């Protein structure tokens, strides 16, 4: 098991958001976290990275990581692409990418990885000296993803990568995510509102409602579930 979460609770101040989440991920798998607005998908990702107050246990590759600081969890190889993308708006594209590799010590390999993500996203190479804040929404999402890849992560947490993007850009982004999955041997935990998109991409899926997991299984099974079809896929 690469990631194992047991009885995870999280709260913002006195507002409790997660009420005992259990989930597991195998190395190399792609898992989708589905649910409506406010169900707790983003909070689950934030809880894994210690960005909210939590109780419960989180194990990553056999190690307990709950209670550790965000910056230490990153060092274990978990890269988080947060909602709102979290790019450094006043820094250049290339500076953003170099920050993604900040905790790595293999200086020479970093240059190679920089070229590799430019290979995935040639547009970023064109704009490498440009301030990240001046990029388009789609380019910023590509930058956020590329920055996460610069860590050479074992686990990639993706928070609504399709949010606010034109359908064509979303398709382009998921094509590249598929290529990344082929090439990088990285596991992904994907939060998406668009269930159809996520279920096409993922191997397994969990459905969250008001801070609890209500359904889990392979992507195919979830897609066939009547309730999911009516509420989340809309046919």
């Amino acid at each position, binding site marked *: 098991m690469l990631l194992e979460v047991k009885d995870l609770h999280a709260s913002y101040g006195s507002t409790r958001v997660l009420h005992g989440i259990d989930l597991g991920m195998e190395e190399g798998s792609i898992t989708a976290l589905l649910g409506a607005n406010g169900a707790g998908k983003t909070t689950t990702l934030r809880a894994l990275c210690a960005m909210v107050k939590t109780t419960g246990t989180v194990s990553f590759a056999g190690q307990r990581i709950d209670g550790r600081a965000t910056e230490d969890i990153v060092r274990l190889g978990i890269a988080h692409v*947060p909602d709102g993308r979290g*790019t450094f708006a006043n820094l250049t594209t290339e500076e953003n990418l*170099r920050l993604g590799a900040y905790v790595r010590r293999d200086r020479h390999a970093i240059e190679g990885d920089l070229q590799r993500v430019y290979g995935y996203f040639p547009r970023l190479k064109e704009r490498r000296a440009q301030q990240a804040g001046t990029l388009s929404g789609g380019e910023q999402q590509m930058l956020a993803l590329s920055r996460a890849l610069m*860590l050479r992560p074992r686990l990639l947490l993706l928070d609504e990568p399709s949010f606010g993007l034109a359908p064509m850009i979303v398709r382009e982004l998921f094509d590249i995510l598929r290529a990344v999955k082929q090439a990088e041997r990285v596991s992904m935990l994907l939060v998406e509102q668009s269930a159809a998109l996520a279920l096409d991409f993922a191997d397994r899926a969990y459905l969250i409602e008001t801070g609890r997991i209500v359904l889990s299984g392979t992507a195919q099974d979830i897609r066939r579930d009547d309730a999911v079809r009516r509420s989340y896929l809309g046919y």
Partner: protein
Amino acid sequence: MDAFLHQVFAGLATGGIYASLALALVMIYQATHLVNFAQGEMAMFCTYIAWSLMNAGMGYWPAFLLTVAFGFALGVAIERLVIRPVRHAPVLSTVVVFIALLVILNSVTGWIYSYTIKPFPSPFPASSFLGNRFMSPHELGSIGITFIVLALLYAFFRFTPLGLAMRAAAQNPESSRLVGIRVGWMLALGWGLASAIGAIAGMMIAPIVYLDPNMMGGILLYAFAAALLGGIDSPGGAVLGGFAMGVLENLLGAFVIGNELKLGVALVLIVGVLVVRPSGFFGKVHVTRV
């Protein structure tokens, strides 16, 4: 004409000091959105350390380097021990902490060293090829030191991974943690650098204004005006503002309002900038959607 040029060059020399201190203020402001009112007293305290070292028989440059290192350690220690515990406090409480630091450093220095004014040596010879008709060797030398410090800082922030991480941490702490930057330490490092810059500024200005616990009061005011003039969130603006402030102060003092009213220039400028253009010449205008 000679008198005029002499005032301009002397203004550039003190302007370099204002520029350094203004830069120290801006560095802390960018990371914390607070103005460190104790910046001047920290610099003054470091300058006394330099004086002690030289009094104990150390040569100028070893004492200089040791003082810069001490200044760095002092800044880091103050951030860790004093500022960090109040980081979630309201702005006013933090301001009170800064003012307390100012008063404490001032009185502790007075208690250790007394309030008697002391001469402080210049590393530059009293007369040499360095000097010319318009500038003393010390003025020229201190401009040189200012430029070296600015160039080193620029290179550090622009070209090193640590400098990049510090800029990132000041800009977006949450994303910085997500790439593994220890944001708390970046802040402490920023305080250390700002304090070390202050120590250099203190040692450069002390031969001109002499060493006493209140020596930085007026200078910090000029530096504050310089930082505001250039834009409190713009390092380059603060440096330009510092030089502009030095020249303006000297010219107005010599030819218009007299030396007694010079400090008033800083105050008028502070109020003027805040009323007319609060973001300064190079600062960003912040617009908030409500």
